[in-house]
């Protein structure tokens, strides 16, 4: 039995318009609607993420809410622009459909409608690409909070040309091939008895022609950038004579940062603050981490400073305009998302790194790509960054609010502590679930134990329970790492904890060789030491310490589920 895919992401082919060749003719809609309904039911999906262009997106959205799903819509630009570009071209006699009415009704029924970028489209694909990244990122983040992996569903003709925002483009950005399903429009056409699309002339196939678009006069090119804003929270507390000393301190900071991290694409001042941009979220996170660590580790007294400067660092991501400043000749970025990043910085926690939802979405997608590559090439990948959700915070002026996360670097120095503000934010809403991806290395087991201890501490779970759980998890992980490896194939390992009124549920799953720990015979405790099979003693203890142990093998994964009732402190 296939594991249900509770969270799905959907990208649909746009409905044919008069000027376009027939990849999705209106006559196909009833068949597609049925196929989509069947697929949603088969996947067991409950939470959905998609855009809402006329065509596959809306067919999906309508089916999904009709089946009782929680739908989150993401639009690449504000409503009027979106309608003129993605809804209105399909209106009227050509399709005979009321796509505008359907769009409005779908937005009303959706659990949420978010506009990824409040700028004009200007015929630019960057906003659509960014919207897709947001959709992917949000599905992943939601998945992490629930301990589930999101699934991508494409409603698609594989021969349709690649366009930004098309399902094909979505697929290219997706890492997990095993969580992908395709409803093939060409096959539906055959089943429906509709004429096939003409095999496109190879010359007509638009090969990845995404980076070129006509630049109108006065319109700067856009790109998606990871954006950093940083300033010194305590700047005004420094006396005038200390400022040169502060600058010497910062020069030393810069030396250390240069040695540790890739240089950002640009760096400019912005009032008292500094902002930088990078091409990937990971590059920028590396830079932010190097900066934070340097500031925390260099001794201010060595520079004649009486207090340590405390940096606030905010990370954001989005489409920005890129250009050269006409007066300074320096490269610069500007636009809505640069301004937004500037507004996030004042609410960042001094001494650490805070990140917005779009940044985290981008970072997660990049790390998923790295993990996928490691899986295929048989190398171990340990995700470098963890994020802790701090809550939804208000931003100044008309920038509304933003979901803010605290970023932690696993490669940061051991002595770096979480700022007190982070600890209290987590105490206020401790997550009830935790998902830990464990690189296949016995040295990681201690790290998993530390995270389990931290989780249990936050929920006031007693010491005896914590020890029992850690012993059980240690044993299961050691077994996987010893016996689950097959040649060069290294298993992916995930530990998931969930806490509810019944107690703790711990799931250890891996993609290693099929191995059922529950079939191991309990050891013959009378036998001599040499005669006992290796590992059997540990599993015996696991059974004793947990209230239940069960095992299934599905989708190429071993899953061992442990349950432990909680004795209140």
């Amino acid at each position, binding site marked *: 039995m296939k594991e249900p895919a509770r969270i799905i992401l959907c990208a649909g082919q746009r409905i044919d318009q008069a000027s376009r060749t027939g990849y999705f003719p209106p006559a196909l809609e009833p068949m597609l609607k049925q196929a989509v309904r069947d697929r949603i039911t088969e996947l067991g999906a409950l939470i959905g993420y998609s855009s809402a262009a006329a065509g596959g997106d809306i067919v999906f959205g309508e089916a999904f809410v009709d089946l009782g799903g929680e739908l989150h819509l993401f639009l690449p630009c504000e409503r009027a622009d979106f309608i003129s570009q993605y809804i209105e071209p399909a209106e009227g006699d050509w399709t005979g459909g009321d796509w505008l009415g359907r769009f409005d009704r779908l937005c009303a029924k959706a659990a949420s409608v978010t506009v990824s970028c409040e700028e004009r489209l200007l015929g630019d694909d960057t906003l659509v690409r960014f919207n897709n990244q947001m959709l992917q990122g949000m599905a992943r983040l939601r998945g992490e909070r629930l301990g589930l992996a999101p699934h991508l569903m494409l409603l698609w003709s594989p021969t349709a040309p690649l366009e930004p925002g098309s399902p094909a483009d979505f*697929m*290219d950005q997706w890492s997990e*091939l095993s969580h992908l*399903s*395709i409803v093939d429009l060409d096959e539906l056409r055959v089943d429906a008895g509709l004429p096939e699309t003409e095999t496109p002339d190879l010359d007509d196939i638009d090969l990845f022609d995404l980076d070129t678009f006509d630049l109108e006069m006065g319109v700067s090119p856009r790109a998606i950038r990871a954006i950093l804003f940083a300033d010194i929270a305590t700047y005004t507390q420094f006396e005038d004579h200390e400022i040169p000393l502060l600058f010497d301190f910062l020069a030393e900071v810069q030396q250390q940062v240069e040695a540790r991290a890739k240089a950002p694409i640009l760096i400019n001042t912005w009032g008292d603050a500094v902002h930088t941009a990078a091409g990937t979220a990971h590059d920028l996170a590396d830079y932010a981490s190097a900066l934070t660590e340097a500031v925390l580790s260099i001794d201010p007294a060595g520079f004649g400073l009486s207090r340590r400067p405390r940096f606030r660092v905010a990370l954001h991501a989005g489409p920005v305009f890129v250009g050269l400043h006409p007066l300074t000749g320096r490269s610069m970025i500007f636009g809505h998302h640069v301004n937004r990043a500037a507004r996030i910085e004042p609410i960042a926690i001094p001494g650490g790194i805070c990140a917005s939802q779009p940044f985290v979405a981008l970072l997660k997608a990049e790390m998923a790509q790295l993990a996928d590559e490691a899986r295929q090439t*048989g190398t171990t990948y340990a995700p470098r960054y963890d994020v802790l959700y701090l809550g939804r915070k208000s931003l100044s002026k008309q920038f509304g609010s933003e979901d803010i996360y605290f970023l932690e670097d696993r490669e940061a120095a051991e002595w770096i502590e979480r700022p007190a503000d982070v600890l209290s934010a987590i105490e206020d809403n401790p997550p009830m679930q935790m998902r830990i991806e464990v690189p296949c290395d016995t040295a990681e087991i201690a790290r998993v134990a530390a995270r389990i201890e931290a989780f249990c501490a936050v929920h006031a779970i007693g010491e005896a329970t914590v020890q029992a759980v850690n012993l059980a998890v240690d044993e299961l992980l050691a077994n996987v790492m010893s016996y689950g490896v097959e040649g060069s194939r290294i298993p992916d390992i995930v530990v998931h904890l969930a806490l509810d009124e019944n107690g703790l549920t711990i799931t250890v799953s891996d993609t290693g060789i099929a191995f059922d720990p529950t079939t191991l015979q309990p050891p013959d405790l009378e036998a001599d030491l040499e005669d006992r099979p290796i590992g059997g003693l540990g599993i015996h203890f696991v059974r004793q310490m947990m209230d239940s142990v069960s095992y299934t093998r599905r989708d*190429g994964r071993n899953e061992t589920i442990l349950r432990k009732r909680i004795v209140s402190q």
Partner: protein
Amino acid sequence: MDIREEDLDGISVVVPVGRIDINTAPDAEAALLPKFESAKGVVVDFAELVYISSAGLRVLLKAAKLSKASGVPLALSNMAPPVLEVFQVSGFAKLFGIFDDREAAVRSISGG
């Protein structure tokens, strides 16, 4: 990216070298799709492939479509176990003839 090509009695064997990811997928597409106009059959040999992303899979899906439309058979060979597993778990393996080695793939296309 580097893509080697060999001809075995009219069967075109395409050997992508290195990675097929979002940057190199256009090269793979440009090398592979035109084969369906002229060759008797096409084999994609994965022996030199270190990594294939979903962008690469998309190129293969397109090739599968072209194969069906043109009647020119397509087969894949020499997949590394992690890659084969992904194809199987995702269900994409059903769409392709997948063989352990190039010779078996070529035989299947010529004979069949």
